[in-house]
């Protein structure tokens, strides 16, 4: 994208992504409640939660933890900026990984046994999903001969035709990235199935709000990658990304949490069969 347009895309992303991400979270909670036979919270509930957290006292265990949490938020925002301005997909993914590493360091810096368990599980999650994320980018490169998001998006046919296996594999790890059951091993949205609160146990007030906002940015970015598979038509891509998210809510409400061994094992088996299989097919074609 030319200079001016990419700046507009960056500004639109920074302003609109938290609004869209928060609304998605609100719809998520409403639909989850309806699936459980409850009425559910108001649509804007995630925004109320974040505004409330902003007005709470901030208890800091280690003075450096604030810096790490802020870095987590900033790198997640940078990831989306690179992606939506049509930049390099590889760089976007590595910025996201760096953001996740900052969250883990923040959890470790608190010296809390509960946060330690959460951070260890967060690392196991990263090990589980990273192979499939890299295979996704490799597959996109093999078809379009570019790591550039804009080139991938403007490729003359939707990637889903040539990368069906990789799309299904990506859907599988999307459950881990969205922190949905059965793979929400480090930090669950449902507090009652958690060892205190996993990786975010020691964050309160503003810091917890930052983690929540980063999660909204991250979700919009991930749905952006889903859109890439159906590119060439904006409307169809967004509609299918919405269907994908509904599927994730359905999976979330129909599963209890698995052990980390099952998460790691199943994610790697899926990456091996669907991801490597699809790439082998492309290479041999």
């Amino acid at each position: 994208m030319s200079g001016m347009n990419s700046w507009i895309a960056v500004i639109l992303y920074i302003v609109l992504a938290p609004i869209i991400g928060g609304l998605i979270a609100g719809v998520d909670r409403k639909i989850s409640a309806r699936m459980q036979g409850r009425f559910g919270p108001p649509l804007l509930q995630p925004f109320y939660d974040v505004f409330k957290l902003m007005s709470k006292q901030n208890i800091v265990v280690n003075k450096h933890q604030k810096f790490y949490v802020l870095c987590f938020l900033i790198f997640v925002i940078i990831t989306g900026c690179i992606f939506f301005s049509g930049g390099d997909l590889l760089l976007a993914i590595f910025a996201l990984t760096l953001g996740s590493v900052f969250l883990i360091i923040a959890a470790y810096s608190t010296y809390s046994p509960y946060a330690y368990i959460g951070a260890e599980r967060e690392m196991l999650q990263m090990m589980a999903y990273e192979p499939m994320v890299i295979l996704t980018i490799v597959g996109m490169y093999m078809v379009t001969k570019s790591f550039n998001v804009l080139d991938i998006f403007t490729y003359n046919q939707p990637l889903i035709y040539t990368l069906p296996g990789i799309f299904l594999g990506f859907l599988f790890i999307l459950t881990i990235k969205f922190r949905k059951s059965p793979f929400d091993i480090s930090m669950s949205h449902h507090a009652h199935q958690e060892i205190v609160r996993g990786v975010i146990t020691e964050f309160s007030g503003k810091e917890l709000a930052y983690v929540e906002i980063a999660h909204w940015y991250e979700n919009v970015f991930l749905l952006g990658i889903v859109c890439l598979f159906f590119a060439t038509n904006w409307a169809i891509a967004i509609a299918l990304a919405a269907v994908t998210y509904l599927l994730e809510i359905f999976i979330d409400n129909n599963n209890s949490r698995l052990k980390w061994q099952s998460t790691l094992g199943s994610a790697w088996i899926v990456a091996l069969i669907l991801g490597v299989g699809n790439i082998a097919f492309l290479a041999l074609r």
Partner: protein
Amino acid sequence: MSYLPKSPWLVHYDASSCNGCDIEVLACLTPLYDVERFGVLNIGNPKHADIFVVTGSVNEQNKSVIQNIYNQMAEPKVVVAIGACATSGGIFRECYNVQGGVDKVIPVDVYVPGCAARPEAIIDGVVQALGVLEEKYKNMGKVAK
């Protein structure tokens, strides 16, 4: 006006209760009462919670646990004592190991009577606690913020 009354998060501690009130608190989360309509979440982590809900009476063993949970909560915070035991010690108040109600160890803002307290009474108690929460937020010093 803050957003505190729109998103109260609870931490629930079951002191030496018979579990009657405990089950009634959990009943509030079920589809029949569904307190998440009002943004109430049972968060399970004192550092994230705004309202401390205690059922059961205080004894030597859980005294330090109650104080510990209360001290870990971020300001502004309120305490709701639910059921006869938590408000006064109930039928156990004469026991050799029971100290009495929760107000013996931490300041209590709202008392919900009943043995066991009805879910409607518990929801009403939490709604009254929201008023106290808003009041405490207004009086909270700049330093604490």
